[in-house]
C-alpha cells in the first residue's frame, strides 16, 4: 500500500487550475498558448480529458445545490496511484512500477515501449500516450521533487489547501475528519474515496457532493481478463515445456531407425518393400474404374 498519498478536498477547490498549470510547467508539458488555440468545449473543463500533454485535469460538474440552486463540484482527474495497479500488472517493460519508498506508481519513460496496455487496464482510464513512439504520460507524483523533500508541483502551488501530499495514514484520517465535518454542515453525501479501493489509492479524495458528482466508479476493479493474462504466461511456458519433453522422448525412441525403401509397381498396383520384396499394400484401381 502507498506510504505517501495525495489529498484532494473538493469542498475547498476553487478550480483555479493552478495545479494543472504547475504540473505542465514542472514537467515541461506543452500547451497551446496562442489565441483561440484551445478549442471551445462547452465547458470550463479544458481540455475535456487527459491527453498526451496533460496528466492532471480539474474536472467541472454541476450538482443540484438545493436552496443554493446549482453548485459546482470540482474534481482532480489524474493517476490514483493504486496499490493494486492494473497498469503495473500489465506493463511488459517495467516502465510502470511501484516506487519502493513512497508506494506511488513510478514512470520510467525510457523503458516505455508504447504498447498502451496500461491505458486499457486502468479502471480509471488515466494513462495517455504521446509522440511518434507512444510514450506514456501520466502523473509521476513528481518523485523527482519528492525525493528531494519537496512537495509535488501541483501541491506546492495550491493556495486553498485543497491539495496536500504526505503520509497516507495521516491524510486518510484527515479526510475522514473532514467528511464528518462536511456532513455536520449539511453535505449529507460527502464521502471519502480511495481508502480501500484497489487495495488503497495514493490519491485520497474528499467528495463533498458525493463520489458520483466526480464521476468516480463506486467499486473500481481490474478486469478479470487482466488477471487471466497473468495465468497465461506460466501456462505458455508449461505448454512449451510439455511439448518439448514429449518430442524429446519421441526423438530418442526414433534414433537408429532406418526405414526400408519402398517402391510402387504400376503393373500390379502394389506398394513393395524394396529390400524384402514384401507387398505392403495393393490398390484396386482397375476395379474402381
Amino acid at each position: 500500500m502507498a506510504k505517501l498519498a495525495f489529498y484532494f478536498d473538493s469542498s475547498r477547490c476553487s478550480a483555479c487550475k493552478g495545479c494543472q498549470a504547475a504540473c505542465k510547467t514542472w514537467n515541461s508539458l506543452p500547451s497551446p498558448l496562442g489565441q483561440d488555440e484551445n478549442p471551445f468545449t462547452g465547458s470550463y473543463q479544458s481540455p475535456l480529458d487527459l491527453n498526451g500533454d496533460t496528466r492532471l485535469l480539474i474536472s467541472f460538474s454541476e450538482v443540484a445545490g438545493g436552496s443554493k440552486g446549482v453548485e459546482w463540484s470540482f474534481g482532480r482527474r489524474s493517476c490514483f496511484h493504486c496499490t493494486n495497479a492494473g497498469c503495473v500488472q500489465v506493463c511488459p517493460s517495467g516502465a510502470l512500477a511501484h516506487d519502493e519508498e513512497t508506494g506511488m506508481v513510478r514512470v520510467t519513460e525510457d523503458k516505455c515501449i508504447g504498447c498502451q496496455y496500461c491505458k486499457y487496464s486502468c479502471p480509471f482510464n488515466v494513462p495517455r500516450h504521446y509522440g511518434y513512439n507512444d510514450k506514456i504520460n501520466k502523473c509521476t507524483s513528481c518523485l523527482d521533487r519528492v525525493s528531494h523533500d519537496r512537495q509535488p508541483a501541483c501541491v506546492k502551488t495550491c493556495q486553498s489547501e485543497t491539495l496536500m501530499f504526505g503520509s497516507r495514514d495521516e491524510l486518510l484520517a484527515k479526510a475522514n475528519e473532514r467528511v464528518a465535518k462536511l456532513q455536520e454542515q449539511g453535505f449529507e453525501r460527502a464521502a471519502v474515496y480511495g481508502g480501500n479501493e484497489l487495495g488503497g489509492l495514493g490519491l485520497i479524495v474528499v467528495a463533498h457532493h458525493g463520489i458520483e458528482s466526480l464521476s468516480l466508479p463506486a467499486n473500481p476493479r481490474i478486469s478479470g481478463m487482466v488477471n487471466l493474462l497473468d495465468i497465461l504466461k506460466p501456462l505458455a511456458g508449461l505448454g512449451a515445456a510439455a511439448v518439448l519433453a514429449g518430442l524429446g522422448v519421441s526423438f530418442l525412441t526414433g534414433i537408429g531407425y532406418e526405414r526400408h525403401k519402398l517402391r510402387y509397381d504400376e503393373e500390379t498396383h502394389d506398394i513393395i518393400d524394396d529390400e524384402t520384396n514384401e507387398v505392403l499394400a495393393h490398390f484396386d484401381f482397375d476395379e474402381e474404374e
Partner: protein
Amino acid sequence: MARYIKRHSLQARITHDVFAVSGILLFLTGLFVFIPPLADAAPATTVYVIRIAHRVIGFIFILVPIISAILAPGGFKHYLSNYFRRWNKEDITWMKKFIPYMLAPKKVHMPNQPELKSGQVVADGALMLGAIVMAISGLFLVFGTWFVDLSAGLMVFMRLLHNIGFIWMIVFVIPHIYLGAGIFQPYRKTARLMFGDGKVSESDALYHWGNWAAEEFEKGEKVVEEDD
C-alpha cells in the same frame, strides 16, 4: 535413376516459407512483450524497434497467404478441399496410432493416407486457426493503438485472445517444425518439400501418403526421374 513426385509448386513453397519465417520472427519479437524481464533487460529503443518490427512482420504474415490465394484461386480451392474432405476408417486409425507411433516408430505402422494425412488436417488446421486468431486480434491491437480509439474492454479482450493464440501456436508449431524439418527420424528429408524443390522421393511419398502416391504414379503427370 530415382523417381520423384512434384508435390508443392514454387508459389506454394514461397507462400509457406515466407509465412513460416515471418511466423518465427513474430514469435521472437513477440517474446519481448510477452516476457517482461526480456523487455526490461533491453534498451527501450531496441524494444520499441522490435515492437514496430513485430507489427510490420505481422502485416507480411497476414498478406502473403491472402495474395497467394488471390493469385492461384484454383490451388487455394484444392488446398481447402483437402482440409474439408470426408474421413474414412484409415484416417481414424491413423489418428489413434499417432502418439504410439511418435514414441515407437520402429514398431507402429501407420495406414496409407491421401494427399493430406488426417493428422495434418488436424494439426495444420489448428495452426491455421491459431494464425487467423492471431491475425485478427493483432489487427485490433494495431488499429486500436495507432488509428482508432477502441474500448478498453475490447482491447484487453483482444490482447487476451492474442496471448491464447500464442500458446495455441506454440503447442502446434513446435511439433510441426519437429516433423516438417525432419528432426523425427522417420520424417528425414521432409524439409525438402517446402524448403527445397518441392519434390518427394518415391519411397517417402509411399511411406507418408501411400494412397496419394499410388494415384500419382498411376497418373504419371507429376512423376519425374532424377539421378540418385
